[in-house]
């Protein structure tokens, strides 16, 4: 604490010294003033800062001599001088055309001479700034985005630029500039503390290196840390990460308020509320809670709102985050709905990163996953990495979201990606400790034991494929056998392959390239050839009560809680028409299991409402029975509904449809991997029906926002598909149905 005060005091002392010196140089001269702008205006003179000074006058004669009298001694002292000689109208004109000058004038401060001149400049500059606020703030926002693209994020970079990076000093100046336009409040105490921390670090960097540097490179970090009284560079980076996150979050919020000001002037229409998920709505480009939401009674709401925001590629409103903090802790193990929401959040890809970041700033991530605390803001000393551990994990999950079609278990891929380096918070080999921690987290999330084991194995071996592929002889059968011994199933091999790609892409450009990708893919092919084929998931056997229903022959439909059972004499199109009825009642199918018992089809759906209260079960059952009797036009109802459906906000990987050979002798197995959407099962089923195919059995699974559907289909004669053209046409029409 003491050192921090001394840095601020040092800056103030230096500022006062320079003020006095400049005042002496100017002397008792009438009708001129010396004005400090920029960092000097804010009294933030660092050891190597340049002096931003304006010599203000009212158009009098002899100003050039006065200027020489001041500038030359300053130049001779070796200080860097950024100077201008202007009248008040000139200064305002320049500021109107140059954003940088305008921003500098916002911190104008009188140093010497005629104070009235300075006051006229300050007031004039502020007046101009407020008058042109809509365009100026848009420029400011664009400049911020440009900086973020060029310099990256302070919080997650291992060698950050303290001034220009996102979350750095400039962002706080931007907040102050927006506040000066009376559009958003000035930086709060949290942001001011964060600002002082970053500024002190820059101060120490100047002092330690003796140069005007903004980029905190690795080799200076330990010494800079000691200079501000911290143990070492790691502690320093953690402090900076916390500060930068606070600043970045505040600047985003400030710009959203600024943008809204502009939007309102352009559009002038009332804010619309559009439902996104249960108790979660979109309003004015932000995700907020519905009026009926009750955070205090709804522990899953945090993840549901976050998932909705990520899937719609929208930010969570700050007041919503405040309210989400009221949610009670999730029960351990988590309910399935919480797991699904987490997967939908991670599965959204790049848009998940900022949502995760927002949750983390409010401490909501560590509340969900306490083990996250140990990797939070954790720097890593490794020339390949460019992000802190926690950001690297989230980035890996975002990259993994693009690979969900490559694996049989997209849900486990996303969780393994999120946890693969979680062991870096503990001593020892991070793969080994990570496997233990990831297992604990998996159990906490309520995953079944086999899935927990698969995740732990994926974390344990996440470096195996890249390491073996680049260091061992792939032509040697021993190499392939050794890998196959450690990776005994195709499910794990697929996970490890996708995880290696996502991990490499999230690490940095040096860690992943075509060269490495080719080697790893080669290894995976060779290992896969050694492993036996995984069995395709088959329909689950029926329970006794369901068999009893089947014996009656139907048609019958029952709705019990989330379980919907449909029984009818088997005929083509039953499954997808029933799915269509459910979709028309805004019920999302989590899983479906269709089997046939001696000519009677029994389909069991597990459903949940897309949002709001579940529909009346008697209405649903009634509609299902009408459909079975052929008295309900499902298609018409769904078409109307589809037109009203909200478009997707986030980009998702293209769906994949494969015909799996050898999985069944009497039917062709169609495997569909896609992003979940309302009525998906209905669309796929209808496409199969239009190809003249009969769905004999099906197993549909929704894993977060992803679905993996398996259909056992036969042709008109009840035989598997063998004709090559017909197989291709089937794949084509299912893909077309998914794209529509």
């Amino acid at each position, binding site marked *: 604490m003491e050192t921090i005060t001394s840095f601020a005091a040092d800056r103030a002392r230096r500022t006062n010294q320079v003020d006095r010196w400049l005042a002496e140089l100017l002397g008792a001269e009438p009708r001129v003033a010396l004005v400090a702008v920029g960092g000097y205006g804010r009294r933030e003179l660092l050891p190597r800062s340049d002096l931003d000074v304006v010599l203000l006058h009212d158009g009098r004669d002899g100003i050039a001599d006065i200027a020489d009298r001041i500038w030359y001694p300053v130049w001779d002292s070796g200080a860097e001088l950024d100077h201008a000689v202007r009248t008040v109208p000139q200064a305002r004109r320049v500021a109107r055309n140059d954003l940088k000058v305008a921003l500098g004038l916002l911190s104008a401060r009188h140093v010497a001479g005629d104070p009235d001149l300075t006051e006229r400049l300050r007031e004039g500059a502020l007046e101009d700034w407020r008058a042109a606020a809509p365009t100026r703030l848009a420029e400011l926002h664009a400049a911020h985005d440009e900086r973020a693209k060029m310099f990256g994020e302070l919080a997650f970079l291992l060698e950050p630029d303290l001034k220009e990076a996102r979350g750095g000093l400039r962002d706080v100046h931007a907040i102050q500039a927006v506040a000066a336009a009376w559009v958003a409040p000035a930086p709060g105490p949290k942001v001011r503390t964060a600002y002082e921390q970053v500024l002190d670090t820059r101060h120490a960097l100047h002092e330690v290196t003796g140069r005007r540097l903004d980029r905190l490179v690795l080799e200076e970090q330990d010494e800079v840390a000691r200079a501000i009284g911290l143990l070492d560079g790691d502690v320093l980076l953690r402090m900076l990460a916390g500060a930068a996150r606070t600043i970045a979050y505040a600047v985003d919020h400030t710009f959203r308020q600024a943008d809204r000001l502009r939007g309102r002037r352009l559009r002038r229409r009332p804010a619309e509320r559009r439902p996104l998920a249960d108790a979660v709505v979109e309003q004015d480009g932000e995700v907020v809670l519905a009026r009926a939401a009750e955070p205090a009674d709804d522990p899953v709401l945090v993840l549901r709102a976050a998932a909705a925001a990520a899937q719609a590629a929208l930010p969570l409103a700050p007041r919503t985050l405040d309210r989400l903090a009221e949610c009670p802790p999730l029960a351990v193990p988590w309910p399935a709905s919480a797991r699904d929401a987490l997967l939908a959040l991670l599965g959204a890809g790049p848009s998940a990163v900022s949502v995760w970041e927002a949750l983390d700033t409010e401490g909501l991530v560590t509340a969900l996953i306490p083990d996250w605390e140990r990797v939070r803001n954790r720097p890593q000393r490794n020339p390949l990495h460019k992000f802190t551990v926690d950001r690297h994990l989230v980035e890996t999950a975002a990259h993994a979201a693009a690979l969900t079609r490559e694996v049989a278990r997209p849900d486990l891929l996303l969780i393994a990606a999120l946890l693969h380096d979680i062991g870096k918070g503990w001593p020892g080999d991070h793969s080994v400790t990570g496997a233990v921690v990831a297992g604990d987290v998996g159990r906490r999330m309520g995953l079944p034991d086999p899935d927990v084991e698969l995740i732990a194995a994926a974390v344990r071996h996440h470096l195996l494929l890249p390491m073996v592929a*680049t*260091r*061992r*002889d792939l032509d040697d059968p021993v190499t392939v056998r050794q890998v196959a011994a450690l990776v005994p199933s195709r499910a794990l091999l697929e996970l490890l392959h996708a995880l290696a790609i996502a991990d490499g892409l999230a690490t940095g450009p040096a860690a992943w*390239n075509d*060269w*490495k990708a080719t080697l790893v893919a080669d290894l995976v*092919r060779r290992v896969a*050839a050694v492993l036996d084929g995984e069995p395709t998931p088959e329909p689950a056997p029926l329970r006794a009560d369901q068999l009893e229903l089947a014996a009656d022959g139907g048609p019958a439909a029952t709705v019990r809680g989330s379980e919907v059972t449909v029984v009818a004499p088997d005929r083509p199109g039953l499954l997808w028409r029933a799915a269509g009825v459910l979709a028309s009642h805004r019920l999302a199918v989590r899983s479906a299991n269709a089997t046939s018992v001696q000519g009677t089809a029994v389909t069991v759906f597990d459903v949940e409402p897309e949002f709001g209260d579940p529909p009346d079960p008697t209405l649903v059952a009634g509609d299902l029975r009408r459909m079975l009797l052929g008295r309900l036009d499902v298609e018409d109802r769904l078409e109307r509904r589809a037109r009203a459906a909200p478009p997707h906000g986030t980009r998702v990987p293209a769906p994949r449809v494969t015909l799996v050979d050898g999985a069944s002798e009497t039917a062709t197995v169609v495997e569909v991997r896609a992003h979940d959407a309302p009525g998906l099962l209905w669309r796929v089923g209808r496409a199969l029906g239009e190809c003249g195919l009969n769905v004999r059995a099906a197993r549909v699974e929704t894993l977060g926002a992803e679905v993996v559907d398996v259909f056992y289909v036969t042709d008109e004669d009840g035989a598997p598909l063998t004709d090559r053209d017909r197989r291709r046409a089937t794949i084509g029409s299912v893909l077309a149905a998914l794209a529509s």
Partner: protein
Amino acid sequence: MKLITAVIKPFKLDDVKAALQAYGVHGLTITEASGYGRQRGHTEVYRGAEYQVDLVPKVRVEVLCEDEDADDLIGVMVKAAQTGRIGDGKVWSVPVETVVRVRTGERGPDAI
């Protein structure tokens, strides 16, 4: 002076590095490379589908040495990189006019 370049199988890099170190070579440059030689890549059959691999990943190792060491070094590298199978790679040397160590400005053999 000579520049020796070797294009070898990636997994042989550690062996080649160790052999060069044992010989007393202190510096070398590694590049990740892809290419093909007489084998023109290779075709693999996997789950019924054919995969054409046209560019095989390789590692390129470059070492500077004095004229009289060149033959020995080539021998050391070939021995370390050899598996006896197709795609083991190539090693060659070319004459070098000037070498300057950037830090000190030393020239010629002193800079190696």
